[in-house]
């Protein structure tokens, strides 16, 4: 097993690395797209704005490498937070920008539904499964995970929505298309339930 955490030059990836290590994975952080050739699992983390991230992904040569491994080689890929959003067709943060186009959908700003609802959505909130999936094995419905975000993934079709979270009227907090997964929360900062998601992901081949 070789987990590759994609470093596209934005944010701290140590927490992600540590959590995968804690789950027993053989994991590296790489800024070299060629490293994906040896990957058994790919992790696309993310902090920052959609457009900046996509610019970096193009500039560093990740775009085609990620798409190739995910689509042609069927390597399981997990997008975390912004990493999940980048799987979409387009995002609007920092201007309308093309995403990786791996899960059909768009990324939009969260819209508060009550005066008490604040953006960004920061803190522990519930995760509800929309579809049963091996990624959520052993995770009780309604388990709290740690979220930090202002935008959310809107899948083009309900079939790609596998989890939701009750905030701003409810948003899709997990997506899937074949071997490609995305979670809006931070498993690396959600302790035991987060470890379980990571272990479940590592068990997907």
């Amino acid at each position, binding site marked *: 097993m070789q987990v590759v955490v994609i470093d596209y030059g934005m944010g701290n990836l*140590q927490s992600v690395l540590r959590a995968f290590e804690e789950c027993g994975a053989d994991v590296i952080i790489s800024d070299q797209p060629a490293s994906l050739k040896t990957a058994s699992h790919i992790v696309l983390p993310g902090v920052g704005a959609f457009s900046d991230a996509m610019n970096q992904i193009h500039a560093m040569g990740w775009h085609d490498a990620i798409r190739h491994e995910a689509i042609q080689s069927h390597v399981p890929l997990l997008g975390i937070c912004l990493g999940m959003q980048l799987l979409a067709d387009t995002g609007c943060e920092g201007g309308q920008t093309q995403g990786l186009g791996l899960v059909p959908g768009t990324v939009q700003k969260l819209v508060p539904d009550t005066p008490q609802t604040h953006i*960004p959505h*920061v803190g522990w909130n519930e995760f509800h499964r929309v579809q049963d999936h091996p990624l959520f094995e052993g995770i009780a419905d309604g*388990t709290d995970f*740690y979220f*930090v975000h202002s935008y959310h993934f809107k899948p083009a079709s309900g079939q790609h929505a596998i989890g939701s979270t009750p905030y701003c009227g409810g948003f899709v907090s997990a997506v899937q298309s074949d071997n490609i997964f995305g979670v809006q929360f931070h498993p690396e900062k959600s302790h035991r339930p987060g470890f379980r998601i990571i272990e479940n992901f590592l068990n997907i081949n």
Partner: protein
Amino acid sequence: MLKVRVIPTLLWKGAGLVKGVGFDSWRRVGTVLPAVKVYNMREVDELIVVDITATAEERQPDYESIQEFAYESFVPLTMGGGVRSINDIRSLLRCGADKVAINTAAYADPSIITKAADVFGSQCVVVSIDAKRQSDERHQCYSHCGSKPTGLEVVQWAQKVEELGAGEILITSIERDGTMEGYDLDLISKVSTAVNIPVIASGGAGTYEHFYQALTQGKAQAVAAASLYHFTEQTPLQAKLYLKSKGIHVRTSQLT
């Protein structure tokens, strides 16, 4: 529903974990790293670690130690103390902190809040405010670990930091700190109702009921405490079970 957070605060001085009363009489209660490990094992909602002498000693945060704390932390970690520049914040985040608390530096140059929010996002910018009740019932903000009056009234400063881009406010009552007699509910509620960003109540918690008061009367979104955990048998988990029994939405999924 977004949960209220129960947060242990670890005050760090030199090589030790300390706790004082009224920002004074610091007493050593252990070492920081083992405490980080224990709270992490207990799956707390979040941890706040503040280096209380970095600013007074005019030195940078101790990045090597902070990296070790982050290494052991699989829950969100806020680091504070000695944060003076955007570079300090960048280094702290790079060490693995999820949020950074700014206090004294914000009075000297409020634009650091805006710059930090622009570069790293407001979600990682916590402005820490230490306030003391004055004879006219107003609360004044103090810098330099509670030692220097700033002349600023707390509500005005809280609103200013929100406007500048702070993502969260950690409000501490200087004279309640370490007393375990309860939060300054007037201070907490003044600040909570004046801003739209989350407010973390701090200073004075001695019982779980004090948490309940800070969340209901004080309208805070999170409750921080130190002495209560250092000097009594009370725990963050028991606190949450108590709050849950009184109808507060807390995260208890670590029990399952």
